[in-house]
């Protein structure tokens, strides 16, 4: 049951992204092109998603625990730092350049559209590069502390 429901959650997300136009780079870039050929549609995607999730989460958290886990795994980090802001700014630049974000590209890789595959491959390379850099700088800091 847990597996089926998890699959359905992903399915809803995948249909929503596809229907909403989030996985169409032209639509995404036009959303940001306020001074050009503006298409405000994606505000309805984000708005609609938060409209359900905000009260939905509130109700779920009030329930105390999930159906198939002992507790909620929600991020607890509260620090607003350079890493968060710098990383998010870099993400925004890439989103603007390509017109795909991770959640939009993943479902439509199934269509085998070459641009999606190129984007997703490059994105995965970026994820591993960043993870490698983070591990390297963490180990370097550790060595510096020990020295």
């Amino acid at each position: 049951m847990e597996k089926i429901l998890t699959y359905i959650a992903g399915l809803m997300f995948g249909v929503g992204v596809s229907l909403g136009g989030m996985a169409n780079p032209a639509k995404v870039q036009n959303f940001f092109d306020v001074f050009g050929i503006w298409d405000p549609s994606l505000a309805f995607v984000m708005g609609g998603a938060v409209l359900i999730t905000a009260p939905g989460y509130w109700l779920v958290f009030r329930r105390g625990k999930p159906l198939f886990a002992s507790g909620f795994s929600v991020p607890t980090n509260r620090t607003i730092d350079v890493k968060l802001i710098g990383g998010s700014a870099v993400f925004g630049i890439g989103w603007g350049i390509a017109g795909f974000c991770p959640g939009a590209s993943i479902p439509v890789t199934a269509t085998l559209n070459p641009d999606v595959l190129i984007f997703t491959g490059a994105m995965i390379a970026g994820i591993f590069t960043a993870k490698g850099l983070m591990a390297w700088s963490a180990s370097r800091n550790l060595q510096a502390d020990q020295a």
Partner: protein
Amino acid sequence: MELIETAFTPWASLVGGLLIGLGTVLLMVVRGNVLGATGILAGFMTPSSSSDWAWRATIIAGMLSGPFALMLFTGHLPAIEVPVTKWMMILGGFIVGMGVTYGSGCTSGHGVCGMSRLSPRSITATLTFMLAAGITVYIIRHVIGG
């Protein structure tokens, strides 16, 4: 590079957004996890255990079925119109991967899940990446392309 005009689709986009919200809430009810694409994908590629991998594989399978499930209703796969070059796709993709890893999330994780929890980190991240994307598109289309 070319300009591709797109039609304003408030209803399709709103219904799409509502479905994303339903999926996001469902995952929280079922497993207590946030539906952040970055976190799910990164954890899928470097899982902490086999059960950790299994649920991520399951939800990704659901996501991948999405375009085909939609096709049952509309008769066609979702439109993917690309106004930019292959090189921009590679560059953009790599930059997105770096950014979401350092920034700990993307449009789904920060923009939907985090904003809905009123997380100050996610609100900051969302405002930052929306602004950065807006400036980037402005520069590409009206400064360089203008």
